[in-house]
């Protein structure tokens, strides 16, 4: 039987044991991007790199589409995904905008409005 340890917070996937099990290969690949030598190897042949780290099809498709919500659904942890985003020079505002269906400028305005 599945035990849910958490309350449901809309728009939020708590990264817990369930997500950690699901996303281990994807997060391990993203962790490897801490080092430039690995980023270079990935960029030379992303498909070979996905295979090297044992990503499943869901994870590969999410990475191919650079779709952050899909990567989270596939078990990705945002701290490691941020290193994937870095390869494509995406800022955390770009990533926020993509997930909320806004332009980056609209997302930045949303952040500014939080000060009101």
């Amino acid at each position, binding site marked *: 039987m599945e035990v849910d*340890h*958490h*309350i449901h*917070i*809309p*728009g*939020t*996937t*708590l*990264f*817990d*044991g369930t997500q*950690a099990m699901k996303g*281990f290969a994807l*997060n*391990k690949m*993203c*962790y490897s*991007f*801490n*080092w*430039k030598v690995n*980023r270079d190897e990935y960029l030379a042949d992303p498909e070979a790199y996905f295979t090297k780290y044992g990503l499943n099809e869901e994870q590969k498709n999410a990475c191919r589409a650079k779709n*952050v*919500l899909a990567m*989270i659904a596939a078990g990705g*942890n*945002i*701290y*490691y*995904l*941020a*290193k994937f985003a*870095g*390869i494509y020079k995406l*800022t*955390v*505002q770009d*990533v*926020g905008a993509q*997930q*909320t269906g806004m332009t980056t400028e609209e*997302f930045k305005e*949303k*952040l*500014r409005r*939080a*000060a009101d």
Partner: protein
Amino acid sequence: MAKILGGLTSSHIPAIGNAIAKEMYEDPYWKPFFDGYPRVRAWLEEHKPDVAINIYNDHGLGFFLDKMPTFAIGAAHEYKNDDEGWGIPQLPPFPGDAKFSWHIIEHMVGNEFDITSCQELAVDHGFTVPMQLFWPGLEQNPNFPRAIPISANTVQHPIPTLKRALAFGRALREAILSYPENIKVVVLGTGGLSHQLDGERAGFINKEFDKMCMEKIVTDPDALTKISREELVLNAGAQGTEFLMWMMMRGALGDKVNLLHSNYHIPISNTASGLMLMECVN
């Protein structure tokens, strides 16, 4: 005997490191943030701590999910940063105080905090950005202290509770005060305040909750231990759980503190930034 001068909190957003590298102190976006720091630097200049215990959360440089310590304490002679995947500049190594680290580790485990000791630990922006903010120039700064990193897990649930974080800080206080060397210590709690990077709720910031936390952490930190971890995610955002570091720091300061300075600004990157300087009364 070792003495605790006080505690500092600071946000540690990676973009701050870039802004420092580009010296954007007068830039309209950055000025309200950087203007908070000179008061704290003046206090550090006056008191010249020998050691900074830097409580931060690693974001996937020093630790991976293969082995994720809930609480980890650095026990190295020096600590190095890395580019973290974004080309962050390599900084000179941060000198540690391994002998003092082992004293703290002995004391913490003796008091039933089963920590992970780290004789090598790559330190990320959570550690380096506050060091750059408080001691500009780092090793070029004549008052640059030795540092001991302490990292708590906020990457993966279950994360520690706020109650445990405060208790950790209180045990850390005993550990520091029982060290026989005549050194002056400042304790840093870095991260926060409210922010969320992931999911459709990305961009969440909660000024009211942050302000409440900044008030209660001075006057009644125990009241904050009533907040559950999920309430913390709900009110501070998924990454606002970094407030745990502030609670660990606060525990090390003793019951009464004087708040000498604070600053709060929205937004820096995706985050509400918070800065506090609290001086120990005893």
